[in-house]
């Protein structure tokens, strides 16, 4: 692999990784791509601040080497919304005060976006009573499914409220 650049699509733009194999996807995004929305919290997969979507699935970008993402499509918070054009989850977090310091927020929002898709695909969680029934994202389900995203400010109840409102909006749009 030495010397050969690895193509990675980031928020729809083609990027190339050709750095030290030790570089995590997180460090590549922040340091090489200038996408500092994705945050480094623990750097050990425990806090979820670095959560991004890879081919639509949420992962901890701190526990993944950039060199292993040859051909992958990565979506970061910058790819979900911008200050001028907020993602509905971002708007809901603002409305419900779903943060204090804001450091965990990009990870929370990427995680919540993926969680909604997982539920639509029928993925059960540890608190789902029936493994084969369609999933309803109750506050209990949201708490379990978001447990990989820590918030040291403790804004959890407002984070759940923001996600619930976003899901209700999506459901209302789907039934119209």
């Amino acid at each position, binding site marked *: *692999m030495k010397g050969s650049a690895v193509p990675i699509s980031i928020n729809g733009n083609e990027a190339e990784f050709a750095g*030290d*194999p*030790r570089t*995590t996807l997180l460090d590549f995004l922040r340091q090489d791509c200038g996408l500092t929305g994705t945050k480094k919290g623990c*750097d*050990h*997969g425990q806090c*979820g601040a670095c*959560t991004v979507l890879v081919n639509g*699935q*949420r*992962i*901890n970008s701190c*526990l*993944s*080497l950039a*060199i*292993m993402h*040859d051909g992958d499509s990565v979506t970061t918070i910058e790819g979900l919304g911008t200050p001028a054009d907020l993602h509905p989850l971002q708007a809901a977090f603002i409305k419900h005060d779903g943060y204090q310091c804001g450091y965990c927020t990009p990870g929370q929002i990427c*995680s919540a976006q*993926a*969680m909604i898709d*997982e539920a639509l*695909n*029928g*993925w*059960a*969680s*540890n608190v*789902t009573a029936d*493994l*084969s029934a369609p999933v309803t994202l109750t506050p209990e389900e949201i*708490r*379990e*499914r978001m*447990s*990989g995203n820590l918030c040291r400010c403790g804004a959890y109840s407002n984070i759940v409220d923001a996600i619930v409102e976003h899901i209700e909006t999506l459901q209302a749009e789907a039934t119209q």
Partner: protein
Amino acid sequence: MRPFEYTRADGLDGAARRIAEGARPIAGGTNLLDLMKLEVETPGALVDINRLPLGGIEPHGEGLRIGALVSNSACAADELVRRDYPVLARAILAGATFQLRNKATTGGNLCQRTRCYYFYNIDQPCNKREPGSGCAAIGGFNRIHAILGASDACIATYPGDMAVALSALDARVEIADAAGGSRSVPVREFHRLPGDTPERDNVLAPGEVITGVTLPAPVGGTQVYRKVRDRSSYAFALVSIAAVVRMDGERIGSASLAFGALAHKPWHDPRIDALLVGEVPSDALFDKAADLLLEEAQGQGHNDFKIPMARRALLATLREATGARM
């Protein structure tokens, strides 16, 4: 992280040869990269096996074969796993987080390493990390450590959930080697007790690679995974139990139980399964099962609580699995 040479495997034989030469295979990397950052693991070479054709869940005889690279998320979400082996889906969903399960693989999960604090701290002696250096957990902080099958060299536990369910289901691990051969080992014999070689977590020989896991024909019955832990989500087990119990009228027709977080491997004691079969469920019977489980249990001080906790967890699990009304 120490520098390493990165190569991508383009075939199973090539990967196995690289591994025989000392390279570490990397798949999801959720455990290995964490350990490499801490320099607990310092491989000089990584061989990325993600592009090998080791994915997919497919029928295998009357059972099911799960490829080594199937993610934990995909395994738990699989229709056949959920329908026929719910204890496996339950155990996977009880561990880690969605982010981690999206990357963690079936083979990698089996090979995950202990979470012993001293194994993780390179300033401390640890026979598993550095053979012959001693064990700081014995006489140290040992709240999460083993009460069964430990040795003077190591009291670490195998931390996972998935393998506990696979043990109750009597699954097998498919292994390929660098010479092009393959073998299949029961999950119950895949992980080892520490003895005086705790550096070896399992029976994989140099150059061997896990290619998949096979499940026997579905046995039905009631399948329960009970996990006792410090937090209700995203925490390792203090005690966990996988139970597959089929009732035959009022009596227990068959039972297969495995226990997590008690030993250096998922614990399976065939005497417990044999004791339960043919009996009418009762707390007295479940207590006898706990007596067998804990016959040689030994606390290390901080983890003494695991002994009564395992007994109570077993009672609760068997009540649920047998539908016993007490």
